[in-house]
């Protein structure tokens, strides 16, 4: 018997997967840091229009969000296809906007109550009538700072 066995040729050594957890953890941390938890589930279609002259929105605690658009597919059976307003987690009518703003304002700290911005996240396909009604309601409760939230992009995308 020979002491030196001939090594078996041809077999590739297995690739070490020891660094796989490290890579996955790296990705994991990236997503953990980048994640913002949405505080309300969207019940409307919300494809924002594009604009390029945008300004950054204020800090998150100074903003209240009003969503509007067509109800998403699974709500269409119940609520129809006409654009609707969503406040927090439920559909609302135009008349509810004022009360919503007052409630939001009351829930903020005293020093922030006068610097609140209302962010309108409205689907691009919505008619302006609904938005004008919202704006009218906002004027009634003196919430005058608004922000039309948009995607960043060229305006020509809106015209297609």
């Amino acid at each position, binding site marked *: 018997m020979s002491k030196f066995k001939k090594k078996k040729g041809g077999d590739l050594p297995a690739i070490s*997967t020891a660094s*796989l*957890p490290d890579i*996955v*953890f790296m*990705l*994991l941390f990236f*997503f*953990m840091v*980048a*994640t*913002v*938890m*949405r505080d309300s589930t969207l019940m409307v279609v919300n494809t*924002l*229009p*594009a*604009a*390029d*002259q*945008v*300004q*950054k*929105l204020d*800090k*998150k605690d100074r903003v209240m969000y009003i969503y509007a658009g067509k109800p998403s597919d699974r709500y269409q059976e119940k609520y129809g296809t006409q654009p609707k307003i969503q406040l927090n987690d439920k559909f609302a009518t135009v008349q509810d906007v004022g009360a919503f703003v007052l409630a939001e304002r009351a829930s903020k700290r005293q020093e922030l109550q006068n610097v609140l*911005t209302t*962010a309108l996240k*409205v*689907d*691009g*396909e*919505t*008619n*302006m*009538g609904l*938005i*004008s009604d919202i*704006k*009218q309601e*906002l*004027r*009634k409760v*003196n*919430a*005058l*700072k*608004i*922000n*039309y*939230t*948009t*995607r*960043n992009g060229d*305006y*020509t995308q*809106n*015209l297609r």
Partner: protein
Amino acid sequence: MAKRSAPEVNAGSMADIAFLLLIFFLVTTTIETDSGLNRKLPPMEDVVDPPIIKQRNIFTVVVNKNNDLLVEEKPMQISELRAAAVAFLDNGGGKGEDACNFCQGARDASSSDNPDKAVISLKNDRETDYKVYIAVQNELVAAYNELRNREFARLNPNVGLSYVDADRKYSDPRTSPSEKEALKPKLDAVKALFPQKLSEAEPSKTN
């Protein structure tokens, strides 16, 4: 005696656990959009005595229900709107105390006196699409920004920022207070030259 070593913990399943977490975060992530066009609504109380504005100082933009644009009673494409608004704001046709010494426009007597007097009036129909409305708003803001950039560069030749960049820096919470202090008078000076006077009329009804 044989050396006893602690048995190694099997870390093979660590990757599985990490993957599980990773997929959870991937699914729950929504990249929030947090930028847009800032606007200020007019207060509700009725103005008792509305100021009289000369017709030549008003730039009327109407968007109808078919999303067509009517600018100063003439149909126009959105792509031409920015240049038209710039020409109107920068016209500087005023004489005497209304004269505008920094305007570079055509000085047409039938257009605006000076940027301080010039008002853009935007009117839309109830059936106008929101995205078209945003496109129009965007172009009008772009016209203001273009002129403000020009004046900012003229007044502060060695800052190396445009007005838009400076404004973004000013509103960035990471900018130090001393830098903000330095930027504020510069921004205010340009804002005073080209104040954003964009009036949104209540929409007309179709029927």
